[in-house]
């Protein structure tokens, strides 16, 4: 069984050459020309340093290698796919992963922007919160801002955040029989965690909406809970 697993993993890198195990490290290393570097040095096991001794701002502008990230995410999807029945379930699981990332990202992001201030603030209104998602969150996670925020014409409680080319799904090709699937469900989970934390419970889903020139265009659809809408009404 373990042998089969090894084969399955190798195929992630390449289907051409699977004969030699020595092949793995050379492919796993990100190309030097990319300019991006993996940031976090692996802490020494023997060292007395723990996470509380590391300054939180040290990795503020750090970037993670795209190759490493893509590999990790492909493993996440494979792992999840083996444990679910159907696409809806798969998206839900990815969303849960995202939720766990989102709670952490929210605290860290706000700490970095407000931690030095004398009177740190939380956002309490809906539009600024959506704007935070659109710029700050996207910058923190993807290194760029999202492309648009739209308000649904039909429903008052629906907002959309649109990314023309989400980096996390750039190298994922969805098979025909699973055309419903959008792996940006992970992003949806992150957004949901952020809204939840700031007190705007919502149901967030991801949908691929290809458009001319943007085959990977993705919409993160936010359907706010009634309580969030009522609260926003009351604050007006």
């Amino acid at each position, binding site marked *: 069984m373990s042998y089969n697993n090894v084969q399955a993993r190798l195929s992630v890198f390449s289907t051409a050459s699977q004969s030699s195990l020595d092949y793995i490290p050379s492919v796993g290393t990100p190309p030097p020309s990319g300019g991006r570097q993996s940031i976090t040095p692996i802490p020494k096991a023997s060292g007395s340093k*723990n996470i509380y001794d590391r300054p939180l701002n040290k990795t503020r502008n750090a970037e993670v290698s795209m190759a490493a990230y893509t590999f990790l995410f492909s493993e996440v999807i494979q792992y999840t796919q083996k444990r679910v029945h159907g696409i809806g379930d798969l998206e839900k699981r990815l969303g849960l992963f995202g939720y766990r990332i989102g*709670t952490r990202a929210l*605290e860290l992001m706000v*700490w970095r922007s407000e931690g030095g201030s004398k009177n*740190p603030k*939380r956002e309490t209104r809906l539009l600024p919160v959506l704007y935070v998602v659109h710029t700050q969150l996207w910058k923190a996670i993807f290194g760029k801002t999202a492309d648009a925020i739209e308000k649904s014409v039909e429903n008052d409680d629906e907002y959309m955040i649109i990314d023309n080319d989400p980096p996390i799904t750039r190298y994922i090709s969805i098979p025909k029989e699973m055309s419903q699937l959008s792996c940006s469900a992970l992003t949806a989970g992150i957004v949901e965690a952020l809204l939840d934390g700031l*007190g705007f419970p919502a149901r967030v889903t991801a949908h691929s909406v290809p458009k001319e020139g943007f085959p990977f265009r993705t919409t993160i659809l936010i359907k706010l809970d009634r309580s969030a809408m009522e609260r926003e009404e009351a604050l007006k």
Partner: protein
Amino acid sequence: MSYHLFIINPFDTPLYSLTFLSTRPVSGPTSTLASQLPSWSASAFGGTVAALSGATSVKGSGPLGPGQGKEDRHVVMMIANASLDVVEDVQRTNGSMYLKAIDRFNEWTVSAFITPGNMKFILLHEPKNDEGIRLFFMEVWENYVKLQLSPFHNYRTPIRSPVFDARIKASAKRYL
């Protein structure tokens, strides 16, 4: 003078608590606070609390003995939990994370800090020490952010990290 810190998650479950006995000399504000309060406290809840335990006896000067602190424990927890109502009312409209002196209960003043992820730090204190408490909360927040970055931490599980505990105690010693 004693301080009580509670970290309460969005589902109102306490994850961490700390009782800290400050050795710092207390100046004027405490006595004025104590003298302001009895009129209020005697009216509504004073009797109840006195019946519950000797919480009112804390009013006397001098640091609280450790044994006495234990007896008051459930009352202190009740006050902290009761203040959540006020905190939740205010947090919808007030964007500040640090809510100073948001609630009062007899001689206790309650200050709160709400993190963006809706985790609440509740501090019960007697003397007025706004700036010290603010700095203390900021350090608790920083340590909390570091704690929750751990992939093994879950916002429903109690905080048992000894390093976290030591860090919070060190901050308390410095600022309270």
